[in-house]
């Protein structure tokens, strides 16, 4: 059933990203916006846009009822949830379908199954997907937790059943620590997630975070589009993602891909999804969790596989059959995504607010920008600090790194501080360049490396150009009125002279 009009239940770069593909497909797009977002790009990029409430997400972008009513009133036949907000909310997905709209994503049952961390473990284990050794059900007490922990060996992680995305985790290095850790983990989980149940997993030392992109249709076909290396993260917030991973070869890719396809089949998956794995130092990989939505980092897969994943999501929601041949799906070149977040990486990652005064994004060969930045944009604390992404594609990893460095050098973003200086420092780091990273790399880098130390820039000490600019600026301000007049006169003089010359 062809989709003709889609409500994009999101904001920011992902809403704009989805609207772009809808426009290319000739499908009308309907944006929703909060009071803070009337001027945002997703409102201006869509064919239609409707207000759904005040700035706070709980009163707008998380109001599934209001969004569904808006979509129905606007005559939509489908809803695209983007990522974040309601994208992995099973009740929302169910309500969308009950309202007679297609949900561009998996069924509510699949979302619920993948969202319950313990249930997901059990399902995956049964399907033959390797899971991290540990509990098969919540541990009722310290004793049962200890039995498991002793069996699999320390260190272990105590995880909240209701957690996810790295939240609600406590590491236990030896048996003696287990009792107090269990008590605290359980009470924290109760407070944070309203569910005190915890379970035990083997804690992997310095693992890599590698995830596999899957795509499934409603005709029982499941495909994978290789891996993304997402180990460069801080407090489970990814900062730099790439495809392929520097440590995954064709054999491992095929093995992890096959496991991901098994995972997708096990939960009767539909649309685009991601199976996250931890890859340990010995080369073993374990199921971590399944994300039942489009990921922030999906563009690196798109660049290496020449595919538009949002387009495929829509086609699957239309009930079309995917006609890929798995063996033909091979990555070409190398892609890296850098997330731009409005955070001060040199000041404890404090979120930054302000007005974007000027912006010029990188252009040229091999550069893709997914952003919703515009001059005059207000960056507030209401929403996620990620304000855009710079994604590059190159012949190989070295080329892609050089291209990303070039692109970040070229970017001009005035008015708001971002993590760009940290990104540039990481790209210069030897360990990163060697691909020698794990999920703890970035926190160690930020803490242990003097990455803000100023190098020589363009042959001069780094402060000198800033000093000269400040002194010349101060000098010009002093003589501002007469200097401006003189400058204008001089410009006008050569313009007149040159114009007379030209028109001869």
């Amino acid at each position, binding site marked *: 059933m062809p989709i003709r009009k889609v409500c994009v239940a999101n904001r920011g770069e992902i809403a704009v990203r989805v609207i772009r593909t809808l426009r290319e497909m000739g499908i009308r797009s309907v944006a929703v916006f909060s009071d803070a977002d009337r001027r945002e790009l997703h409102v201006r990029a869509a064919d239609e846009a409707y207000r759904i409430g005040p700035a706070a997400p709980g009163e707008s972008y998380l109001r599934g009822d209001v969004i569904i009513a808006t979509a129905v009133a606007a005559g939509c036949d489908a809803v695209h949830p983007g990522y974040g907000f309601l994208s992995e909310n099973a009740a929302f997905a169910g309500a969308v379908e009950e309202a007679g709209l297609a949900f561009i994503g998996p069924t509510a049952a699949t979302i619920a199954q993948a969202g319950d961390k313990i249930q997901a473990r059990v399902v995956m284990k049964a399907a033959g997907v390797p899971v991290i050794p540990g509990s098969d059900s919540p541990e009722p007490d310290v004793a049962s937790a200890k039995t498991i922990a002793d069996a699999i060996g320390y260190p272990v992680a105590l995880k909240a059943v209701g957690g996810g995305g790295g939240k609600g985790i406590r590491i236990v290095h030896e048996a003696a620590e287990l009792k107090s850790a269990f008590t605290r983990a359980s009470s924290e989980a109760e407070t944070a997630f309203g569910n005190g149940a915890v379970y035990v997993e083997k804690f992997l030392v310095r693992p890599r975070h590698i995830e596999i992109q899957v795509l499934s249709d409603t005709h029982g076909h499941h495909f994978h589009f290789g891996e993304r290396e997402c180990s460069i993260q801080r407090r489970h917030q990814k900062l730099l993602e790439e495809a392929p991973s520097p440590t995954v070869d064709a054999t491992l890719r095929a093995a992890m891909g096959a496991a991901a396809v098994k995972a997708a089949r096990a939960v009767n998956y539909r649309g685009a999804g991601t199976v996250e794995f931890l890859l340990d130092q010995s080369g073993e990989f374990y199921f971590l969790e399944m994300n039942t939505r489009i990921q922030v980092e999906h563009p690196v897969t798109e660049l290496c596989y020449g595919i538009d994943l949002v387009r495929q999501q829509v086609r699957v929601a239309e009930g079309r059959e995917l006609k890929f041949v798995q063996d033909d799906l091979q990555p070409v070149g190398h892609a890296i995504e850098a997330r731009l977040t409005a955070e001060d990486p040199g000041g404890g990652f404090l979120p930054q607010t302000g007005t974007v005064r*000027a912006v010029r994004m990188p252009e040229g060969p091999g550069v893709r920008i997914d952003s919703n930045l515009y001059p005059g944009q207000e960056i507030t604390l209401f929403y996620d600090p990620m304000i855009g992404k710079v994604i590059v594609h190159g012949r190989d990893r070295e080329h892609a790194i050089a291209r990303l460095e070039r692109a970040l050098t070229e970017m001009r973003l005035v008015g708001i501080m971002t993590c760009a*200086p940290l990104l540039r420092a990481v790209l210069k780091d030897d360990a990163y360049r060697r691909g020698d990273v794990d999920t703890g790399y970035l926190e160690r880098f930020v803490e242990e490396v003097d990455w803000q130390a100023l190098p020589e*820039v363009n042959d001069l000490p*780094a402060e000198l*150009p800033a*000093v000269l*600019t400040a002194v010349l*600026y101060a000098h*010009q301000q002093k003589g501002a009125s007469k200097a401006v007049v003189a400058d204008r006169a001089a410009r006008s003089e050569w313009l007149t002279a040159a114009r007379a010359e030209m028109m001869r």
Partner: protein
Amino acid sequence: MKYYAKVGAREFECTMSEDDGALFVEVDQTRYRVDLAHIEASASYTLLVDGRSYEFALHEDEDGIELSGGAGLFRVCVEDARTHAARAMVSAAGGPAGPRLVKAAMPGIVRELLVEDGAVVTKGQPLLILEAMKMQNEIRADGPGTVTRVHVKAGATVVKGEKLLELESPPSP
């Protein structure tokens, strides 16, 4: 014409001169040919130093001139020779270099004050906890010093840029 520019702890003496329409600045015995042009709609300044090309966004406030460019963020205080001489006299007479203001980088609620008036702190030491978006953020000292004034109380709501406390640098050795 002489200017004094201070970046962090370093001070640069800059002597400006003009020759045949071109501007030169001498710093540390090296003479640079410089040209600065403003692109207002891009909020940007382009600088050529002996042909080397740099670009900065510039923002001036009461604390000095903040420049951001490829190499990072710089805060520069510029004084002309007269102001510099006047201030040097005040300093020599034992006047304080002036306390450093610690301001709120974001709106939030002061959850906890970790220091009090008179406390001697080291670089990186947490001063207070500021909460926003349900996240607790430690505000740390940007260098060693003594807390000379605390402007806020625990539980107070602050706006961006609001004064939190003041730190005085230890006397230079």
